């Protein structure tokens, strides 16, 4: 009985440690700088014909890391309301990403059909894991920031 209880307690503590994990607040501006600069650099280099796949891949990875840094950075004052808002923002991001995944292929197909009807082959663009990760993180950050303003 005691070992069962202590085992459950250990599991609870492990889960708590992971769910409560946050980076220091100072990390947030660095995260924004990394994410925005990588996004700008990606847009610029994507137009250049000879840019290697590795450079673009690294930029995308760094961009997602930057967004993740912003998402898991601690607020100036962390309290129970912030935890509730984080939960709501996460749910909002989850719903947005489901919508994004379902709707995007239809929209891209529709646009390509309208823009180029002669060469249209029913293109349904597959979403990469970068698109989904970026969308999740962006929606989470936007949702959290909006709710923080609403609850001010």
């Amino acid at each position, binding site marked *: 009985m005691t070992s069962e209880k202590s085992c459950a307690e250990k599991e609870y503590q492990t889960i708590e440690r992971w769910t409560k994990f946050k980076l220091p607040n100072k990390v947030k501006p660095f995260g924004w700088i990394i994410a925005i600069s990588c996004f700008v650099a990606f847009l610029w280099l994507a137009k250049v014909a000879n840019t290697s796949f590795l450079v673009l891949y690294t930029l995308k990875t760094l961009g997602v890391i930057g967004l993740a840094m912003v998402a898991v950075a601690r*607020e*100036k*004052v962390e*309290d*129970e*309301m912030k935890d*509730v808002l984080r939960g709501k923002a996460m749910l909002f991001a989850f719903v947005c990403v489901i919508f994004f995944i379902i709707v995007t292929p239809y929209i891209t197909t529709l646009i390509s059909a309208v823009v180029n009807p002669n060469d249209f082959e029913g293109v349904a663009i597959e979403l990469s894991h970068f698109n989904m990760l970026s969308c999740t993180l962006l929606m989470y950050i936007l949702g959290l920031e909006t709710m*923080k303003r609403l*609850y*001010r």
Partner: protein
Amino acid sequence: MINTLKVQRAIKNITQDELATVIGVSRQTINSIEKNRYVPSTVLALKLSRTLEVSVHELFSLEITD
């Protein structure tokens, strides 16, 4: 749920910022509770009642719709 936090705070002559600092939450949390946008946890409700020296029942009460 309705609360008399704003009234009790005025009686004690404490600002939102001061109350937030004593309890260890943000000023936004106190403001949200006062505006009935956020329902605090039991721990926070007890901390508020202890700091304002009133019972939890005096501070928080259920509405008919609750």
